[in-house]
């Protein structure tokens, strides 16, 4: 493991950028139609509960990342096996987000550029950032957090002043009852983006002020959850339910609608700016978690050396995990949440927590 110290502000910024990452760009929870925002809020609530699992585990092992304490909890060999699974999971998530990012650019502005080239440029930048160390990434996060918020506020003001918001589009609330909302909540919003906080189990030991973990992470999740909810509400109220449901990238459509005084228009660039920043941090954090976990499990003295090879794996995986966009989305919405997100984000950590609970109780009793 790298020796890293980050401040609580930096952790907060990373949590927010990571959580908002790609969730703001894609039509999150569109299965719940006009109640998508309720599904997002439920997801946030669920995500906070799930975070407490990670938090309790952190309380037991405040100095260790998940790849180390899994070995303490389940024993050396089983622990290492689970740890390796986590490396693969983080790598897969990184390549998924990279694919999302590349697809978005390829469909909207770089129509003729091969996906591999777009993705390669991104992953090379990320490998470079990781090579420089996590502290650098955290500091970059602080800078870009400001930029993201400025563009977000600017964009929001422009949308409001264009008179595009028709809150009536959100009605009728719960038209088909709670069922579709709950379904979306379980199948999507609890795991994406909120359950993805599992990646921070690799990063929490870096925080200098150990007491602040809870408040910083919960605060970051709530802030990003509110931001995502606002975005969903704005998307629906600008586009209407039908178009929200049909759009591959609703926020892009919403931003494209801005037209003020015949000269403030075609502001897609704001969206692109956000896309690149958000994509960068989400991929970088997943990728860093994978690199750190690999270095930890295989006991590599210098984790910088594996950044490049793992980066190449992410790059080629991002191009090969699906042969077209429809397949990529289908996997992301149907297969991945059930077979990957639920086990890795919720089931394994809960089991670890139960075992850790009994082990540590025994420990405490024995000296007494």
């Amino acid at each position, binding site marked *: 493991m790298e020796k890293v110290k980050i401040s609580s502000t930096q952790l907060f910024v990373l949590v927010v950028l990571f959580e908002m990452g790609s969730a703001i760009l894609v039509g999150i929870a569109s299965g719940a139609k006009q109640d998508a925002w309720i599904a997002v809020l439920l997801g946030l609530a669920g995500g906070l509960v799930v975070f407490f699992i990670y938090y309790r585990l952190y309380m037991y092992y405040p100095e260790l990342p998940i790849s180390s304490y899994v070995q303490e909890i389940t024993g050396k060999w089983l622990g290492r096996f689970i740890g390796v699974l986590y490396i693969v999971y983080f790598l897969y998530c990184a390549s998924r987000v990279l694919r999302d990012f590349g697809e978005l650019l390829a*469909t*909207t*502005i*770089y*129509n*003729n*550029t091969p996906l591999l*080239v777009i993705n390669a*440029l991104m992953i090379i930048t990320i490998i470079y950032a990781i090579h420089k160390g996590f502290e650098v990434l955290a500091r970059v996060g602080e800078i870009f957090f400001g930029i993201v918020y400025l563009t977000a506020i600017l964009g929001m003001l422009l949308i409001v002043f264009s008179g595009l918001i028709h809150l*009536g589009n959100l*009605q*009728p609330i719960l*038209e088909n009852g709670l069922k579709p909302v709950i379904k979306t909540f379980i199948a999507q919003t609890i795991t994406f983006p909120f359950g993805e906080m599992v990646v921070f189990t690799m990063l929490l030991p870096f925080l200098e002020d150990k007491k602040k973990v809870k408040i910083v992470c919960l605060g970051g999740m709530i802030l990003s959850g509110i931001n995502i909810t606002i975005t969903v509400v704005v998307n629906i109220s600008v*586009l*209407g339910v*039908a*178009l929200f449901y049909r759009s591959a990238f609703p926020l892009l*459509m919403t931003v*494209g*609608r801005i*037209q003020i005084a015949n000269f403030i*228009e*075609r502001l897609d660039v704001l969206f692109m700016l956000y896309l690149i920043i958000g994509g960068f941090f989400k991929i970088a954090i997943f990728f860093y978690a994978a690199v750190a976990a690999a270095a930890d499990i295989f006991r590599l003295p210098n984790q910088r050396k594996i950044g490049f090879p793992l980066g190449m794996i992410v790059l080629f995986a991002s191009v090969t995990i699906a042969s077209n966009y429809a397949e990529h989305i289908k996997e992301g919405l149907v297969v991945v949440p059930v077979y990957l997100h639920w086990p890795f984000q919720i089931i394994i950590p809960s089991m670890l927590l139960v075992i850790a609970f009994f082990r540590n109780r025994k420990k405490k009793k024995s000296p007494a």
Partner: protein
Amino acid sequence: MKKWVKVILLIGLSVPILTACWNQKELTDLAFVMALGIDKGEDDLYHVSFQLVNPGNVSSGQNGGGQGLPIAVYKSTGRTMTEAARNATKKVSRRLYYAHTNVVVISEEVARERTQFLNLLDSFARDPEFRTTTEILIARGASAEEIVTTLTILDKLPVSKITKEIKSTEAMLGENFSITIDDLIDGIVGSGKEPVLNGYQLIGMKEEANKAVNLQKTTTDAFLAADGLAVFKDGALIDWIESKKSRGVLWVLDKAKSTSITLKWKGKKNALVFAPIRSKTKVSTILKHGKPVINIKIENEGWLSEANTAIDLIDPKTIGKIEKLTEKAIKKEVQISVKEAKRLKCDIFGFGDVVHKENPDLWKKLERDWNNYFADLEVNVKVDSYLRREGVRTNPFWSDINK
């Protein structure tokens, strides 16, 4: 030494990345498509006219602005939009670029045929280059080609004439309003609201419309003008709402901002003109004997722009009477439009959406047969008009003439 090799290698490697712009297009290699005109041919193909801007001849200012025409129109055919666009490359030297397409004109013939009309729309919605704010129009009494080939004075680009004209009509008269492709598709998809589109006419000598001579006169031989609203049902044009009757539609849709309302005063026709400044419409629904009833409430305020009769405008009571007359006049306009839509059995006002939002359970029962249900729907109109001021004269000169 070794360090230098490394540095040079690194610089060399980054060169291919830093060139950027994979599919860069120079401005001089692009043909900006300003408008598309889509007609139907006898061969069942789309006949598409591409109105391209002729950049050198548009720029204004002292030394700019060539002598040639500001636009050039190329035509091509195809079974689909994409095919037609690709076929056009045989004729155009530059790459057709659609990011600035502001207007799509569709001929009435195409619009009346469901599949032909609907087959067009997805290409506009799906192409990332196309803007969703593109205005969509129906050519009325002329082919779409004639509309896009017409030259205009005042605005060099015919497209900006059309888009600006629609905006000013929406703001000042309230007979036409801006309708984009997204609005249209939303209307076709949902069952609670049917879409309308602006009609566009070519008035005058059609054969002169595309000649430079047309620009040499103060009263051009042929000019473009908005005319009426095309009503769509089940994805095809079924009928028109004439300009006179279309103002009520805009009142209900809450698009009307200003207009002029001519009133009769004590037996004299055209005596007073009320000009609203702002207006707000609310549509709601209540249940009456298990049936939905639509309530339209319109609130507007404005000023008196003409008084062509002896009238005591200083008296607040007179003002109250004028307000009452205005309310009656607006109410009548709305009722005429509602009647017209009921005749067509086509809910262009989105009353179905209102029922859907306020009473989802009831809507589930009515949704299937909504347009027929709409034809017998009870619609109440309530108008509140406020006459705030009378311009820079108190009583009109008419009051003194008669003494």
